[in-house]
């Protein structure tokens, strides 16, 4: 069941929306008084030549303008606030869903497209909170106009009051295809900006092989497709606007026809006819506003559907209710685990053990890491930590004890030291030194306080790896799983890092998924996964000498 994003966005700001509606209605009402006052001035002052009456009525006009001004001032402020706050709330909800510990929201979506949903679509849904008060004020203007007409003539009044719902219904019908068009057009536009984001993201790769011209040609095609879709939507919207003009013209014509005949037959006065025609013209305003509000609602609905599809994305794993013991010893057990490339893996890691896992198949290593971090539950078999099955634990609870430091971990746009601290207090210097990230800091202009570019892109691969490893070590979790932390690091530094990991993780369970002999040399024990199944187990030195498959995997 998809959440009703639009309804919730409106309900969340109902106070502001209500206040804004009342003020906008006040604005509408006082605006309608202005032409009435013009008539009064003509009648009372210009026609009679009374200077006193002129001054008096101009004073009244000033008062009306004052109210009109203030109603608009505060109606707009509350309405806009409701609009921006709703957009902000949606942005946070989307962030919350994407970051949810159970995962699953990023599946099948470009992150550029997700960012687009969190910015533009959230804004469009929020904008409904401004469109509503304006629409409601227009509606009340229509009703007041209708009531005045009714008091003059039952026929004219009924005509308008019955005609309005009919017109609204027609506007709704006209808006439907627009909504579909708008949906398709926005998808295309999101795709075009997704392609642009992707190309900009791969800028270095493109430049490396001189493919920028080909990429430009490709973007041009995407942009032209998007242009064609936009123009189709714009044409639909233009004809929608045109049709609304015709409809409102018809309403004016009908009022003129009926009112004119009534006046000619003496049923209403000429003054009433003038007022009716004037009101019909005044009603043009609210009716054009309806067309606009309708368009805003159509866009808002299309955007709300996209937001709902993210919020309702299925989670990668179900939650759990079990709790970990107060102090986690770090006994990790895998029993007959089969998942993706993993086949019937049985491993028992003792508390405090430093174990190496060598996989001949990179896919099996990745599958193992996903299971250990509970980014997924294994197809068959089970994993447990201190005897608690992992699939009974909330992923978030599990991650308080088990940290899986992925090979392609992202750094963030903040200082190196803040990246390493990752929101924790305490002295991170030992971790920096163990990961040889202190050497990285020395090459940076402001040392550890240097602010990194987004996702750490201002660092080289080896520097990023060392910063990411320092972060994992500084977190000091009861169980640390590290995947290939030194593939871009030179041999001498790698040896230093191996010693650093050994010293820092002394007495705490650590799983090193790697084929680097420098790292494997410091482990207590190594498990060899060949084709996803365990084929050998033992100390690194023994395996190097005694196992041909191990030797060729580790020592190229």
């Amino acid at each position, binding site marked *: 069941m998809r959440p009703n994003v639009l309804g919730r966005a409106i309900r969340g700001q109902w106070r502001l929306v209500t206040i804004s509606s009342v003020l906008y209605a006040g604005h509408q009402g006082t605006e309608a008084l202005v032409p009435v006052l013009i008539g009064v001035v003509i009648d009372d002052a*210009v026609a009679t030549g009374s200077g006193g009456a002129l001054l008096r009525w*101009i004073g009244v006009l000033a008062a009306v303008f004052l109210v009109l001004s203030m109603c608009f001032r505060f109606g707009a402020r509350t309405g806009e606030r409701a609009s921006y706050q709703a957009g902000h709330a949606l942005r*946070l909800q989307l962030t919350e869903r994407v970051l949810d510990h159970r995962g699953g929201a990023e599946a099948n979506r470009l992150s550029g497209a997700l960012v687009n949903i969190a910015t533009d679509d959230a804004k469009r849904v929020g904008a409904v909170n401004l469109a509503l008060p304006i629409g409601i004020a227009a509606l009340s203007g229509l009703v007041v106009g209708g009531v005045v007409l009714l008091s003059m003539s039952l026929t004219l009044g009924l005509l308008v009051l019955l005609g309005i719902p009919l017109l609204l219904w027609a506007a709704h019908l006209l808006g439907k295809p627009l909504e579909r068009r708008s949906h398709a057009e926005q998808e295309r*536009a999101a795709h075009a900006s997704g392609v642009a984001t992707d190309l900009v993201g791969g800028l270095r790769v493109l430049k490396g092989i001189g493919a920028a011209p080909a990429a430009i040609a490709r973007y041009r095609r995407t942009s032209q497709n998007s242009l064609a879709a936009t123009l189709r939507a714009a044409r639909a919207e233009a004809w929608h606007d045109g049709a609304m003009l015709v409809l409102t013209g018809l309403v004016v014509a009908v009022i003129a*026809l009926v009112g004119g005949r009534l006046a000619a037959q003496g049923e209403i006065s000429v003054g009433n006819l003038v007022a009716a025609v004037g009101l019909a013209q005044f009603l043009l305003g609210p009716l054009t506003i309806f067309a606009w509000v309708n368009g805003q609602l159509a866009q808002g609905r299309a955007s709300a559907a996209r937001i709902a599809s993210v919020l309702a994305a299925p989670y990668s794993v179900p939650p759990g209710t079990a709790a970990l013991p107060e102090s986690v010893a770090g006994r990790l057990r895998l029993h007959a685990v089969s998942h993706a490339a993993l086949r019937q893996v049985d491993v028992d890691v003792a508390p405090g053990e430093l174990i190496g896992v060598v996989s001949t198949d990179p896919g099996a290593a990745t599958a193992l890491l996903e299971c250990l971090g509970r980014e997924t539950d294994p197809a068959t078999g089970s994993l447990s930590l201190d005897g608690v099955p992992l699939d009974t634990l909330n992923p978030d609870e599990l991650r308080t004890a088990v940290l899986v430091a992925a090979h392609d971990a992202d750094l963030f746009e903040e200082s190196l030291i803040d990246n390493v601290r990752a929101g924790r207090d305490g002295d991170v210097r030992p971790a920096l030194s163990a990961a040889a990230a202190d050497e990285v800091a020395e090459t940076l202009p402001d040392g550890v306080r240097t602010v990194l570019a987004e996702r750490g892109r201002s660092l080289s691969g080896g520097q990023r790896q060392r910063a990411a490893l320092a972060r994992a070590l500084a977190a000091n979790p009861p169980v640390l799983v590290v995947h290939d932390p030194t593939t871009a690091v030179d041999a001498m530094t790698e040896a230093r890092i191996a010693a650093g990991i050994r010293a820092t993780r002394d007495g705490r369970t650590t799983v090193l998924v790697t084929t680097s002999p420098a790292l494997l040399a410091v482990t207590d024990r190594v498990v060899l996964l060949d084709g996803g199944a365990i084929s050998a187990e033992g100390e690194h030195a023994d395996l190097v000498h005694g196992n041909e498959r191990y030797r060729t995997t580790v020592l190229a």
Partner: protein
Amino acid sequence: MSGNGERADALLPTAGGARIRAVLGELLRARRSLAIGALATMFVATGIGLLIPPLLGHVVDLVAGREPADAITTPVVLIVLVAIAQGGTTAFGLSLIAKLGEGMLASLRERFVQRALHLPLEQVERAGSGDLTSRVTTDVSMIADAVRNALPELARSVLTIGLTLVGMALLDWRFLLVALVVTPIHVVTVRWYLRRAVPLYAAQRVAAGAQHHQLLDTVGGARTVRAFRLGDEHRERVNRRSWSAVELMMRGVRLVTGFYNRLNLAEFVGLGTVLGAGFVLVQNGAVTIGTATAAALYFHNLFNPINAALRLVDDAQVAVASLARLVGVAELPEPGEPSGVRPPADASIRVSALGHAYVPGHHVLRDVDLTIRPRERIALVGASGAGKTTLAKLIAGVHRPTAGSIALGGASLDELGPAATRETVALISQEVHVFAGPLADDLRLARPDASDEELRAALDRVGALDWARALPDGLGTVVGEGGHRLTVTQSQQLALARLVLADPPIAILDEATAEAGSAGARVLEAAADRALAGRTALVVAHRLTQAALSDRVVVLDAGRVVEIGSHDELVAAGGPYATLWEAWSDTRQHSP
């Protein structure tokens, strides 16, 4: 945050008013007849719309003149016809305006992406790629909004104001003068507004950019955020950035309401003056009461179009701020091609007295001299930070050296120019990026006209054909973000296949095998070996097995070449390379 000020400085260029006008003029000239057609159609549509009030007046006259009821039918039918004509012409005019505006926008964003992809990498990195993407997403959508809403409204309002003022002058020339009395209030208001709006909109753009950046950081790094349980912190950051954008938007709203309040004042003063003038003119017998009424109603009818036209000053501000950011990049000079391109004579590389500093005074490379023969394979070795990557990037023409020169096949990089350099040398770094879309499209970035057979041959050469065939839709499988996820090894095999397709005589691999982990590294080393066959190659290697297999090894330390020679020579020499090799082979053998 302390980084904010620096980031603002480091942002990509924004264009000034003159540049923007020139670009808009150029885009308009390319669509001259469309622009004229759109304007003419809107003129007709507005003119037709102004016929409705006189027709209603005619109905009133007929009734007041005690004409028979049936006489009303004619003006009413005319009103219907006018409405239909107005609807039709408006729809047509609006679609023409959309075609004009959207076409200009598409040209502009395409030019933007074209220039963006030619930007020097250093500049993009300093600004953050979020700056580029927010320009191509948020700014483009801001301008699209203006094109879709502001442009047609401006056309209609200006036409209505013009035609109504003509009407007032026809009643009595003095009414026109009185109507223009309030113009100073308008001028002062617009000035007051712009003085505050310009810096405010600039601040809004910066805040929107920062919000976009933060979302890219948080959403793109979601896995890491979850693993380190940084969710609260990142939610708070998104909250903070988003909220500061909201607050700035609200300041904008307060400014705009102040603007309208001042326009309300102008409306009141104007209407009061017109009524007063009517009073005086009627007393003097210069005009009739009916004319005074008409003048007041005409002036009242100007309220909406005047407000609409002046409000567009506001939309125009937003659009111009966005436009400045698009044009700023779109109008960067094209990288200059030398007048007479000197083609490389062979696939040799000569580097002389090369030096480089990213920050002045902070030398990363000094006095590097190096000659590489055609088809020779060189391994570049050294500790992290020794300058290997910088040297690789300089030879590939990514950065311009601060000192010394580089020649490929006897022609300096300047003589070659960017296009020929692109064809001569390729750089594959450790950065893995799979382009979103079908696998074949990704490969065709390297050679757009490659046949499926050529794509398969290239994949086969880097040992990737088996898994590529096994993908759900083969070469048509959608890969990259949002599609089928490839492993790091597969992604780098793809990068090497692109190299095979691009087929440059010189190739530079900067730890291209590093990210895959050592199991994948061996697969990639074999793939790289085949991809490099027949090319002059410079391989930045951290796995010394790669060094041992190359023709010569160059050892860099602190930005200088400290040793050059074959693997055996250097091991025998007992210098820095021998020490490195010892550390390496030590871990490899691990014998007691």
